[in-house]
């Protein structure tokens, strides 16, 4: 008998009678979603900046890089949702970012409950780009913030991607003496640009 059949046979012989699906747990958050998103993202060591429109993004990116003494250079995957913006003085590279580089990505969804960015992978939105760079800058429209993970995932159900990355703050570790250090393998810093319209 194959391992598969053997295991399934044991389960059927031993398991309790099938229980019906329990009522779905849901907690309604009635506070301001954008406010909550920003608070929770900051608590997870991300920076959050509110912009009036998408036209302000390239200026804000240039400002973030200047403030960190970094070259005005970002990596955008070919076909990126923010490739069409006027990047002005900021140089745009299409190669995968290295561990000290900067990548910019549009998050199609944000989760208010936890301050989480939702990145469904696609050919113009490679999953690995959220982990390769040293600094990730995420652009999120206020209108794309949903209350919780359940809502975010249900809007992806029609076109389920091979990878969904939920990102909340920069990479971190507490593996040495249980003390928090940022920038373990993924980005050392994460900036969120929250765009009002």
């Amino acid at each position, binding site marked *: 008998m194959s391992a598969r059949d053997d295991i399934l046979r044991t389960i059927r012989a031993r398991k309790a009678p099938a229980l019906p699906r329990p009522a779905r747990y849901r907690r309604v958050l009635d506070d301001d979603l954008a406010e909550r998103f920003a608070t929770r993202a900051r608590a997870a060591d991300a920076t959050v900046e509110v912009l009036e429109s998408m036209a302000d993004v390239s200026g804000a990116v240039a400002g973030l890089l200047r403030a960190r003494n970094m070259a005005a250079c970002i990596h955008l*995957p070919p076909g990126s949702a923010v490739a069409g913006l006027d990047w002005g003085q900021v140089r745009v590279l299409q190669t995968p970012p290295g561990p000290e580089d900067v990548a910019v990505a549009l998050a199609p969804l944000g989760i208010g409950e936890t301050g989480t960015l939702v990145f469904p992978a696609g050919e113009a939105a490679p*999953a690995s780009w959220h982990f390769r760079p040293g600094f990730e800058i995420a652009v999120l429209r206020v209108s794309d913030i949903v209350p919780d993970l359940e809502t975010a995932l249900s809007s992806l159900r029609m076109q389920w991607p091979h990878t969904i990355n939920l990102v*909340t703050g920069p990479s971190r570790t507490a593996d040495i003496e249980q003390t928090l250090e940022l920038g373990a393998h993924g980005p050392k810093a994460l900036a969120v640009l929250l765009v009002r319209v």
Partner: protein
Amino acid sequence: MIPDPTAFRQAAHEALDDPRLKVALGRLKTHFVQKRADAFERYGDFAALRDAGATIRDCALSNLDTLLEKFERNVTARGGHVHWARDAGEARQIVLDILRSADAKTVTKGKSMVTEEIGLNGFLEKNGIRPVETDLGEYIIQLRHEPPSHIIAPAFHLNKEDVAQTFRSAHTELPPERALDERSALVAEARVMLRRQFEAADAGITGANFLAAAEGAAVIVTNEGNGDLTRLLPRTHIVVTGLEKIVADMDDVSVLLRLLTRSATGQDITSYVSVVSGPGDAQDGPKNFHVVLLDNGRTALLGGETGEVLRCIRCAACLNHCPIYNSIGGHAYGATYPGPIGAALNPGLLGLAQAHHHPNASTFCGRCAEVCPVKIPLPSIMRYWREKEFEAHMAPKAMVFGLSLWAFAARHPALYRLGARVLARVLRVIGGRKRAIHSLPVLRGWFVARDFPAPQGKTFQEMWRAR
């Protein structure tokens, strides 16, 4: 160090005498216990969330067969492969066969207790494949040839000087005069060294925190991002996980995730949660995707007296809150799963002969059951194993003798009354003016760290009769 659960008593004694371990264990309270309490306080709805979590797990276990078949169908439909392994040996062989067919020489690994359970690293090395652990804690202990000492903080027993010394002897290509005094320098060095490994690896192996049947998805929870680089950069991604990790769908995962991260590290959510459902696309991600479902004794526990251990989501809150674990750490258990969950699970997975000491490593204070996010009655399960140990005549002879002496007296009330009266008087004399007993010819271990207060006045039965 060869892990050996039968050597638990000796190993626990040695751990108690380790002053460096005591310092590391002292950090559990501030770093895990307090942060967990704060996180649920912030959330404010622990009881309802926990009820939902326990119900979801019970429901999944009662539908285990249909959920696993559904998961398999959905993974296969997306171009992935599902493999079933009855035991550790089958799982190791499946992984080796996949790696051989992918012509893999180097594999990066995300943190996985199941691959510890099946002894995967040693097996791969013997077969000419180099596994590289990429979770910082796992990387450190791999370099030191040690097993993990905690389910989610595998190197918590070490201090930064230990890590610096380990890195100096492992990373010989780096300048020996470099400064490694700060934790940040150690993290930065691991970042550089491991990025090379991610780029060079032929395959990546991760565990899964959850499987969602309806989406055919494995969910990987990390803070470092190492699990994702392990999945996304090599050509082949293999998920090795216990088959009990499955739930109906991502809605169920969403509930359990709220419990897991708060219980484990006191975070509302970890930096990264990745929902992976098959190979990547033309531009990015693995070309091949495999899931290995491990049984290894799990299905045999279904429906039995200890079946509730299968609800476990491996958050390690029971370890952090256990007075025994807080005194001896994880290595003394000599098994993959230490602490209360280990004490409840190991006799079932390893057999009573191997793990019968573990259920005795409890004061039955009940904190483990109080904090368990899926309401596993850990002390009751440990009590069940203690009874089995007694029935199997594995309990220490002195304990069996003492208990049978007591049982005989308890069945003969006159003898019991007389015995209690004599014993109380004798102990009072031994106690002397200080009214404390420092040692006795029996129960010597009890007196190592404390005195026994000498009985005063009459016995309870004498006082009761006098009323």
